[in-house]
């Protein structure tokens, strides 16, 4: 645990290994699909050749989806890491404070109103941010705020959103219902571009890096942080807002992909320790790798039938996480 020694040789090695794996994952995702393309054909596309069909499959279908998957996975893992530090609770995930519920209600209302897909995305993002403000405002309340209070407020607000979703689906079964169910399970077939998630991911990792030392202190508890001269209140505000924006961007892109945000930060802690300066960029890469691979499996394993990616993230991640947890005890 190199809490005080700063990012050293080990950190560099970790990030290089992860970056290499990320490249492999992206390459695999572009190479594989329900239509078989020889690796040479895919490489030909990137060198500016290749048949029209290969170009269409690789550049118009696989690459945009791969990029969206990678950015979404990275966002969720970073959001999870931030939430776990903020709430000092190992069970915290990006959705624990009701952000996904707010986004789902926003998206659902836009669908019921018959608005276009751009509006659905915008409405989802607005719902996520509204939920963020409600939870923080209520948890802040009279001024005394603790992680427990924030967590409880978030969980209850999330339950409220859940009820609204169920209500809307019950009284207004729209033709979008199957799509909405896939959305709630997390589905990258609905991703419509990766500009927003990539921009958010880059900005948030760059913002989180200088906060790393303060986050390390905060992770040990607010009292120690205050004693050590960290402005706890402002830091917690910043972390909360960052995590909220990150989650909103992820949810807007691919719906509520479960599991990545909870498990990836924990897996990394088991392997590389709990230094936030390393953990956050590593989470961005590892989350991206997991979701990219999961989505590749989701679109190919029982093709032509397509699975929502949320199913696969859990199937891939659960055994991996349990293995790491088991090993860490012995």
């Amino acid at each position, binding site marked *: 645990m190199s809490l005080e020694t700063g990012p050293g040789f080990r950190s560099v090695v970790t990030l290089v290994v992860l970056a290499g794996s990320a490249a492999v994952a992206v390459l695999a995702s572009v190479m594989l*699909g*329900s*239509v078989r393309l020889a690796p040479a054909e895919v490489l030909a596309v990137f060198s500016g050749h290749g048949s029209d*069909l290969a170009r*269409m*499959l690789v550049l*118009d*279908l*696989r690459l945009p989806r791969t990029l969206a998957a990678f950015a979404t996975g990275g966002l969720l893992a970073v959001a999870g890491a931030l939430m776990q530090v903020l709430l000092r609770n190992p069970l915290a995930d990006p959705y624990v404070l009701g952000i996904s519920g707010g986004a789902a209600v926003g998206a659902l209302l836009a669908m019921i109103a*018959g608005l276009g*897909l751009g509006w659905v995305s915008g409405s989802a993002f607005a719902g996520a941010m509204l939920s963020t403000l409600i939870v923080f405002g209520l948890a802040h309340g009279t001024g005394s705020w603790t992680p427990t209070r924030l967590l409880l407020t978030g969980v209850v607000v999330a339950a409220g959103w859940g009820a609204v979703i169920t209500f809307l689906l*019950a*009284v*207004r*079964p*729209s*033709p*979008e*219902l*199957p*799509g909405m*169910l*896939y959305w709630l399970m997390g*589905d990258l*077939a*609905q*991703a*419509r571009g990766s500009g927003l998630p990539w921009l958010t991911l880059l900005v948030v990792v760059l913002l989180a890096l200088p906060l790393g030392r303060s986050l390390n202190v905060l992770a040990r508890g607010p009292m120690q942080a205050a004693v050590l001269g960290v402005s706890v209140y402002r830091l917690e505000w910043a972390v909360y807002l960052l995590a909220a924006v990150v989650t909103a961007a992820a949810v807007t892109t691919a719906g509520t992909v479960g599991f990545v945000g909870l498990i990836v930060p924990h897996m990394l802690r088991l392997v590389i320790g709990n230094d936030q300066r390393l953990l956050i960029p590593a989470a961005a890469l590892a989350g991206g790798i997991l979701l990219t691979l999961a989505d590749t499996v989701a*679109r190919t394993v*029982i*093709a*032509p*039938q*397509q*699975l*929502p990616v949320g*199913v696969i993230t859990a199937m891939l991640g659960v055994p991996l996480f349990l293995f790491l947890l088991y090993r860490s005890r012995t």
Partner: protein
Amino acid sequence: MTRGIPLTNRLALPLALAALGVLPWIGLSAEPERIDPDAAVIDDRGREVYGSGRPERIISLAPHLTELLFAIGAGERIIATVEHADHPAQARSLPRIGSAVQLDLERIVALDPQLVIAWASGNPRAQMERLEALGLKVYYSEPTDFAGIARDLRRLGQITGTMHSAEAAAAAFEREIGDLRARYSGRAPITVFYQVWDPPLMTVNDRHLIGEALQLCGGTNVFGDLKALVPRPGREAVLAANPEVIVTGGPGEDRADWLEPWRAWTGLTAVQRDNLFFIPPSLIQRPTPRIAEGTGLLCDALEQARLRRPEPDR
């Protein structure tokens, strides 16, 4: 292939709901069609789609659309369709490109179709947007009533270059429906509960295609006035409405088990007179020409129920 995947089961209800054409969100126009092979065909989303003679490679993205294409004689040019496209028999051997609610875009693109017939309310919008952006020619269909089925048969005939056989199919369908209407719509009104699903208990209102079939047979839908296209009444509401007839499509083609629970309610008029009827769901719950056959069965059922009334009410 679909079996053993719990997800598919979880999606069975939403799929069935979507297949019922819940909440049509497109405006439908009723003006007469010109038949001109070079003119644009207006699809059910109000888009202009230009025909290109006789497309040889067609992909159909819903079971009922596959049926419509076979009905107009364009079935042998379908190169792929979705899961659950099971009618006519030739449709079962067609290659699959996913399910109607989750398409495999790669395979669709790789098959290089000249025309994609899509289901406006059922296919995922984001995926359809991507296909259109890739330059595929997409025609959206969404028949929501008898007139819509006939109209879509003609329009599909125009866009696939089979206008004559399409006209014949549409005219035959209109004739069958017209005959049924002439024969039954003036019969003594009889109250009916049509059960779409259970659980939750679901029915249709008067604006639904099945609601239209009930009216044609001289039936009075006990939940016809409800606002939702596919309302979910409680069992109490059905008991209170005390329909003379209960009709269901059931979860499968030969499974009438949804009718059994009603037999426990011996106070219901429908139960006392044994007016519990089953109609194979594919004949009445799909917007295809076969609904004429399903409507015929429905009218027969209501006619039987009329004969079981006490003498003076027949």
